[in-house]
């Protein structure tokens, strides 16, 4: 399956991109994508659990299995207002 991964704020700076499409085995969870990112980027290594996770613009548990076509975003600590 393919999912679209969006990067915002500090995560965009760390990864150097604002989005990418990735190919994953069926049923992969957002938390597993987070672990991949931790493996790739030293600045994230200390973050065992993902920040808040959104699938298709709604907050969900990072342990929810993903489906083909999902849009996934890890939400760093928000600071609006």
């Amino acid at each position, binding site marked *: 399956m393919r999912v679209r991964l969006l990067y*915002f704020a*500090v995560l965009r700076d760390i990864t150097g991109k604002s989005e990418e499409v990735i190919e994953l085995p069926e049923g992969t969870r957002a938390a597993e994508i987070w672990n991949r990112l931790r493996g790739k980027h030293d600045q994230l290594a200390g973050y065992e659990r993902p920040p808040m996770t959104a699938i298709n*613009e*709604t907050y969900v548990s990072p342990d929810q299995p993903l489906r083909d076509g999902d849009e996934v975003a890890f939400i760093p600590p928000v*600071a609006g*207002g």
Partner: protein
Amino acid sequence: MFSVLSVVINSMSYLTDAPIDSQELVKRVMRPSDGACVVFEGVVRDHHEGKKVESIFYDAYRPMAEKEIQRIIDDINIRFPQVAAAVVHRLGKLKVGEASIVIACASPHRGEAFEVCRAIIDRFKQTVPIWKKERGPDGEEWVGWQK
């Protein structure tokens, strides 16, 4: 019977790249039956945790931020049907003294207008996917991110 709910504007964008006109928000919410309007402006200040701040860059997951703000407004409309509320958050680069958010709450009486204004900003800061990068003489930093 006249329904105050019908006056609340739900279909507009809550995000803007331009300076916010708070008087426009006041006009949007005020009805002849209102005796109070509370306006909250969140403003860029020149310091944060002992560091000088010159400007702030606001970033957002725009479509999700719009939805989250709509959720806040919908909940408020259910809990406080007599209050009309409007919210606009600005994105991009803001200088010290500029408003990043304006919330206007109109109500027949002041108590609920104050209460709702406070409730909206408190919840906004917890759930809406907006981020800020502070810039100052010492460099720049995403607020809230522990390195």
